[in-house]
């Protein structure tokens, strides 16, 4: 081939002139998008700012380490140590149920998917749980945990099972986190190129070893993201706490076995504490409610920030040569 056969492009396309060439429908559309976007920013900023201002006004470090007590004014009602610990206990129970269950379900759905009918059914079931309001899950939980067979998981007196305990609330809250964990893990697994699975199988690895050593570590950022999002939902849930935890102000243990007695007993979390102390609740101590809500918001925002960090870190490399 001769050197001169490829002609250079005659002109370089001029850069698009700004502004006036847009059609008016497009311009309206963009304006709407801008307005909506700014609106959401404003709403989010308003919530955070409001809670920040109110929180800083009322939060005292001593509130975090003082037990709450019943009382008529703010100096008598103490802090919210018990609700804070309650949130922690409930989160640990819920995630330790939802994480293994969710990851196992996601692996089954994504990597095996057989028997086909059962897998599709499970998929719809998980979606249905995701769409169920938590108050409905809570109500369902009272039915399950009030049954005599599960009496050992909550307080009972004279054959009547209370059905309210950290166990009951944690187990039902795991259902709130489960769909998020299943969804994120599945997405993470499906984003792994198929040739990576084949590469592992082609050097004589079993499917199980491939999942355990290659696929799950690769999908770890997604699993973490799903877990954090699920945790955020668990921490923020109120309906299940109010109905299934009893929402007693302090830890109200049941029986004599250490740890077991707490888990079988009732208590409260930050959300039920906020509800209790809001003008709508029995306590009606708005300053305490604002302080607790501030702490709650801070925890959830910290979780979201952690998700973002994990996401950024996950872009470590690619297979595209």
């Amino acid at each position, binding site marked *: 081939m001769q050197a001169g056969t490829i002609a250079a492009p005659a002109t370089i396309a001029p850069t698009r002139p700004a502004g006036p060439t847009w059609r008016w429908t497009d311009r309206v559309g963009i304006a709407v998008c801008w307005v909506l976007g700014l609106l959401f920013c404003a709403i989010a900023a308003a919530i955070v700012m409001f809670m920040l201002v109110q929180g800083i006004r009322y939060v005292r470090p001593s509130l975090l380490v003082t037990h709450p007590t019943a009382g008529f004014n703010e100096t008598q009602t103490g802090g919210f140590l018990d609700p804070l610990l309650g949130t922690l206990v409930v989160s640990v129970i819920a995630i330790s149920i939802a994480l293994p269950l969710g990851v196992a379900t996601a692996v089954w759905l994504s990597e095996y998917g057989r028997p086909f009918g059962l897998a599709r059914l499970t998929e719809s079931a998980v979606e249905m749980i995701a769409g169920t309001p938590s108050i409905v899950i809570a109500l369902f939980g009272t039915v399950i945990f009030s049954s005599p067979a599960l009496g050992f998981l909550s307080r009972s007196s004279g054959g009547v099972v209370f059905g309210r305990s950290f166990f009951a609330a944690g187990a039902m809250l795991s259902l709130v986190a489960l769909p998020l964990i299943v969804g994120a893990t599945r997405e993470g697994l499906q984003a792994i190129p198929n040739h990576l699975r084949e590469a592992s199988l082609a050097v004589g690895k079993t499917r199980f*070893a491939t999942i355990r050593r290659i696929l799950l570590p690769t999908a770890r950022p997604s699993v973490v993201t799903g877990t954090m999002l699920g945790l955020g939902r668990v921490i923020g849930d109120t309906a299940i706490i109010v109905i299934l935890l009893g929402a007693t102000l302090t830890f109200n243990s049941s029986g004599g076995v250490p740890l077991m007695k707490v888990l079988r007993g009732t208590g409260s979390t930050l959300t039920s504490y906020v509800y209790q102390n809001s003008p709508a609740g029995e306590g009606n101590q708005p300053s305490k409610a604002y302080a607790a809500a501030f702490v709650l918001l801070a925890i959830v925002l910290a979780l979201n920030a952690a998700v973002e960090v994990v996401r950024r870190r996950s872009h470590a490399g*690619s297979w595209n040569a």
Partner: protein
Amino acid sequence: MVEDSQASSNGHGPHFVSAPRRRVKPSQFAIDRMLAENVSIAYGQKQAVSDVTLPIRQGEVLALIGPSGCGKTTLLRALNRLTELTSSATLRGRITLDGTDIATMDPTLLRRRVTMVFQQPNPFPLSIYDNVAYVLREQGSKRRPGRRALDGPVRDALSRAGLLAEVEDNLKHPALKLSGGQQQRLCIARALAAQPEVLLLDEPCSALDPQSTQVIEDLIVKLRDDVAVVIVTHNLQQAYRIADYVGFMYLGELVEYGSGRTLFGSPREKRTAEYISGAFG
């Protein structure tokens, strides 16, 4: 060889037949390792490979050539039963490894003896070291071998793949940070770590630059004494440069099988001659 002298005497071959070959002389010995007998593979109703009979020998590089969709990759994948991962795939005929029907073998054991390297360099998202060590772990016994026991075999595999000198100082670095050519050699190291008898290569150079390709071609020719090498390639020049034997496949059939010299120099079949001269493909 008689065939070679015939090939050089007639001038009908494609232009690259006069180009230098990477392999200078035939290997000293050749041992039959695998044998495909009347193998037919179908995906559902679609026939991908029809009635192929082919020997695979250690000491020789076998190249499978042919246009896209001719079944060469399917045939390759059938050799370590990767076709089974496609649920619609059915196989008729018999493939043996050292006389044993591979259908009767445990697939994980088979795939340790017949390992595969893919078109796309696909190292695991682990460190360079762990990519190779992963293959060696959980092998045979249930106990995971310790780090010290793995060091030797890992280095050995990396050096057989010609990668050790480049990565020796940073074995802990993530494998995905390597260049494409290095990644592919890491994949070859990974495939060699299992101490296989047969190495399957599915267009290993098609995603690589010419320099990396040359390094890998040299490597393949060097490896043929220890393992039987089967390479699927689109690149006729590549097949000519490195293969001792070449199989030309078209529409699922093995049209012609013969030594590299014969197939490129004086093909028996009209379709082979047309394909290697560029009439279709």
